[in-house]
């Protein structure tokens, strides 16, 4: 099962490696990991996408809570939530492909943020699945480079993760 875990942790040097080290030491999967400071500069918020059985997830949550730098842990995917990922993708845009790329970007509600004679950089936001399908919709030979931020997520409505 895929899970999205949100963690509030002290914004201190080494806190990230404590979390990453825990996952590798205990053999847990990390599909993606993003981290940045919150509106409170002393706190960082990390989002980890992982997979595992219920038992494994229970252990992941408990082990994360045990880390001294970790303030709060929530499994976002337990209830209604929104998730987004940002992708920047550089594509070849020459000849008839140039128009096609623009059209594809529009269909997926992407934005072209850099233009040269032969390339576009398209910015696209959405769920991981949406980004995957955009990539699948393009001619693989035209993709020059992709970079993705990994998933970040937030609970819907009254579900609030705060200290």
């Amino acid at each position, binding site marked *: 099962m895929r899970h999205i875990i949100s963690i509030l942790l*002290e914004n201190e040097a080494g806190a990230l490696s404590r979390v990453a080290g825990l996952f590798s030491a205990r053999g847990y999967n990390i599909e993606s990991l993003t981290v940045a400071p919150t509106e409170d500069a002393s706190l960082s918020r990390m989002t980890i996408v992982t997979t595992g059985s219920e038992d494994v997830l229970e252990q992941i949550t408990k082990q994360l809570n*045990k880390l001294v730098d970790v303030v709060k842990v929530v499994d976002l995917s337990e209830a209604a939530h929104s998730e987004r990922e940002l992708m920047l993708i550089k594509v070849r845009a020459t000849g008839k492909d140039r128009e096609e790329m623009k059209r594809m970007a529009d269909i997926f509600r992407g934005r072209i943020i850099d233009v040269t004679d032969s390339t576009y950089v398209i910015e696209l936001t959405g769920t991981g699945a949406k980004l995957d399908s955009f990539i699948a919709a393009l001619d693989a030979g035209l993709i020059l480079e992709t970079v993705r931020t990994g998933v970040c997520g937030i609970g819907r409505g009254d579900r609030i993760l705060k200290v």
Partner: protein
Amino acid sequence: MTLTGAEIVIRCLQEEKVDYVFGYPGGSVLHIYDELFKQDDIKHILVRHEQAAVHAADAYSRSSERVGVALVTSGPGVTNAVTGIATAYMDSIPMVVLCGQVPTYYIGQDAFQECDTVGITRPCVKHNFLVKDVKDLASTMKKAFHIAKTGRPGPVVVDIPKDITANKCEFEYPASVQMRSYNPVVKGHLGQIKKAVQMLLEAKQPIIYTGGGVVLSDASEKLVKLAKRLNFPVTNTLMGLGGYPATDKQFVGMLGMHGTYEANMTMQHADVVLAIGARFDDRVIGNPEHFGGVPRKIIHVDIDPSSISKRVKVDVPIVGNVPDVLDELLKLLDDGAKAAPDVSDWWQQIDGWRAKNSLGYKQGDLIEPQYVVEKLYEVTQGEAFITSDVGQHQMFAAQYYKFDKPRRWINSGGLGTMGVGLPYAMGVLFANPGAQVACITGEGSIQMCIQELSTCKQFELPVKIINLNNGMLGMVRQWQEMFYSKRYSQSYVTSLPDFVKLAESYGHVGMRIEKPEDVVPALKKAFTEYKDRLVFMDFIIDPEANVYPMVAAGKGLSEMILSEDL
């Protein structure tokens, strides 16, 4: 008052009432050593290898209710200390390890004796700190002691760059610690405890299974009260020995890979298991599928939620401090004076298993290791602190020395570190001056920290070393005999030193004991005539003695190999 970082370190240790620091000096900690020199409150114990400093600090904690402190220099000082830190971490021992570091402006430049201390120790500490500003030093020290001893205890490393120990700032030791990210649970959930009581009262074939958590939280008396109130059988893990008095009739012995027949059978066939401060590890329950194959209810009390339902699914999890939870359990049992269930049939069955006498052995022409431990128990009247190394002798010590009190059995249970025995004995003696301390070891393990014989001379530590010398790495040899068709690959130790002469060369007393009839006189002599000396007793034992009963790796608890089967 403005102090240097080094002065602050010493002041913090004084504030924490630290009386001994085990350590080894070096470039990065010279300022701290200079301040140690200028005061008398804290005594520094100079070891011969940093690993031993950490083991000694660890045993100081294990054998008392205080927090041991070690001090090592940067680079190799730290890497040598890592085995000691990992050993303490696996057994949840509170400890603070202060490490020197190269100056902040050299960090990351591959400076002389630089290593990434925080990175190297991260997976084997409860927490670690790198102090980057002298203003943070006092609060970091306070946090280190607080984290080490609260919740599930563990070692904490404080990495202090050399320039921080020279820089100055106002010193004030914080009275308390507030950390939003660290608030260990103390009280157990009352609803869960009520459920547990109900389950205990309905049990027909119960067992109380306890581990190191009972010893570490000083909950032995409460455990005895509960066990007596219910008349349930009690078993201890290797780490839990002494948590329940071994000579009590309700004690069925240690369980697990080398546990007694009655302990393992009682555990396997129990309908209700009350687990307290124990973690169902692989050496305890053997194969989890085999253990899980029997329907039973499990109540698990532990301060660490991640220990619960980790290897075995639990029916009633209770997260809390063991003594607090035991208090609640006892209170609920006494409310309305609930009658304990009738377990007389269960006891009859247990007594049947006991009748197997699974720890029986024959003392013949060669000295049997079990015999030495039994006689040691008699000569010391069960009052000694016993430290051990790792291997066959460790299991013999656990099986044949009956621990009636907690914190008397000091060994590396989780990590299984050979070489801990002698430095452990040192730490025990500093925490318990005047106590009888015996280190049960083997000729393999003792050589891993043999240099500490020198420290023992310097501080006149009257350790009694019981060297069960079979010329073999006994536990390795036993596995090779049983599972590798007697291909004894690298388990035979050649070119052993003459331990008698070696001990004498350090200024100690050495004895070699080769005949069974000499065992008791030698032990008596060591504990009377040489009471105040370190005595190295080299017992030449039966090289083929094996540890039984045994649950082979991957087997179930009721699939024991008994000595009589062979």
